[in-house]
């Protein structure tokens, strides 16, 4: 038995949790981000200006929330975030997530020059690895799946290498499987392609 492709795409576009939006307050999240000094690494407007920090502006709120809970509960070890997330309650985490989700994504100030050949190699690899299926063709991400378009290139290399080496997991092992056997050079190309988007 096989799925019917056309139906599949239509069905999946709609299949989603419709639990009412969480009680998020981006304004409270902004105050909290200021108090906690999140911007010193992730940038005042959520666009990180230093290696290898991830930009958070425009990330799906569900992605940020899930990762923050994993940090706080020490279910994902990622110093210094495990310590920095202590004392935040669920609502505060959702507020922070709403704040960063609402900020406009953008390239880091120190974004490097595009290398056309490297970007093409990364684009071909991204197509082969089906990155756009989960992260969407725009790489804007959705739900628990992060935005990777315009992310810092050094952070992407760091994260993809961790997935490849099995030192980081998502909410499942999907990224580990996707990155299995991908070489350092290929990771560099992939990161360049995504960072230039």
């Amino acid at each position: 038995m096989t799925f019917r492709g056309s139906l599949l795409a239509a069905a999946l576009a709609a299949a989603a949790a419709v639990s009412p939006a969480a009680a998020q307050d981006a304004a409270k999240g902004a105050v909290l981000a200021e108090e906690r000094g999140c911007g010193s690494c992730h940038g005042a407007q959520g666009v990180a200006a230093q290696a290898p920090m991830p930009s958070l502006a425009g990330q799906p709120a569900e992605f940020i929330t899930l990762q923050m809970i994993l940090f706080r509960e020490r279910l994902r070890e990622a110093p210094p975030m495990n310590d920095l997330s202590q004392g935040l309650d669920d609502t505060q985490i959702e507020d922070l997530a709403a704040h960063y989700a609402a900020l406009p994504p953008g390239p880091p100030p120190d974004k490097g020059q595009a290398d056309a050949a490297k970007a093409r190699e990364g684009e071909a690899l991204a197509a082969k690895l089906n990155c756009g299926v989960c992260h969407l063709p725009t790489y804007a991400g959705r739900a628990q799946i992060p935005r990777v378009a315009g992310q810092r290139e050094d952070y992407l290399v760091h994260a993809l290498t961790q997935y490849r080496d099995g030192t980081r997991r998502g909410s499942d092992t999907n990224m580990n499987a996707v990155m299995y056997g991908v070489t350092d050079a290929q990771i560099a190309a992939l990161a360049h392609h995504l960072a230039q988007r």
Partner: protein
Amino acid sequence: MTFRLSATIGLAAALALPPALAAAQQAPPAPAWQQGRPDSMAASPLAPHAPRMTVTAPDRIPVASLKVPEGFKVELWAHGAPGARMMAEGPNGTVFVGSRTIGRVYAISEEGGQRRVRTLAQQLKQPNGIAVRDGNLYVIAINQVFRYDGIEGKLDNPGQPTDLTAAFNLPTEEHHGWKFAAFSPDGRLTMNVGVPCNVCEFDRDRFATIVSFRPDGSDRRIEAKGIRNSVGFDWHPRTRELWATNNGRDWAGNETPNDTLHRIRRPGEDHGFPFCVGSWNDPAVPQRECSEFVQPAAELGPHVAALGARFYTGTMFPEQYRNQLFIARRGSWNREKLSGYDVVVAKIGADGNVAGIEPFLTGFRDDSNNGFNGRPVDVMQRRDGSLLVSDEQNGAIYRISRQ
């Protein structure tokens, strides 16, 4: 809502169990949920729905959209327990609740007509297995087994549990390694050991089994084999036969195979996984005659994730529900059109055969947009005859009673 709740979540680390052993593993060749997926579906967007691990405020819990049969009512009984799954009740009425991703065990007690949620333990690896015997709480987190003696006398400071992990010697495989646990009528701690893949070759005396032990972990016995992953079972109140739900495999089509209900009359019988589900020969494995195996007692629908299952023995519900099996269907992901997301009743006749599967609690699934607003995982009858239903997506527990 007419009641107020106080939730005590995220207790100090002093109350936590030692962190589960985080075995650093090599990058696996494929995540378990993708195994068995044909190459033609490599670009399929079907994937498990993301867990929700934050508190859902009561005014955002969809209790108003839930439906029960005429003469029943459903209300929000407790909230503030993110990831709430399997339930067990202590002698003094405390409801213990396990979870998966968030790694917590909750204790919910009634204080002055309100419910109080405590986090008893945290940082465990998928502590889904929860059972109570003689006032002692058993928690099973993949292969780890902990016993908290006299737990209801020390809810605020449970201390270190007795570690029975070595005695039980359970497999450490994480995929389908989360447990459903319950004590049999003759006092044996019984649990599933699911298959550590979607469909694969494996030791059939070790995985895809339901096994039982003495409470100290000795005297292991296979109750049933060839059951892919049972996350819900109970013993018939009269016949004492074991009835178990089972999750069918993924990526074999929208309508194939069914999740199943199994009637286990004799310990050790073979129910057919990975070869057969009823009369369906799985083409992914060597072909066998399906008549070799015990046939399912009922089909529960493709990909519905039939989980917690308990017989109703109370007197609050009408006679027609006595000794009938309530089953929570958490809801599908490996199917284009969502299915499940409800609680059904398997109507078992005097002859011991299933006469039908009837809806009981609905309203979590919205077919107009192929979406859902909750995921029921377990059912549990309380001593007053009411039925509790846990909702993992909302960290909530509902109470169903007669109007």
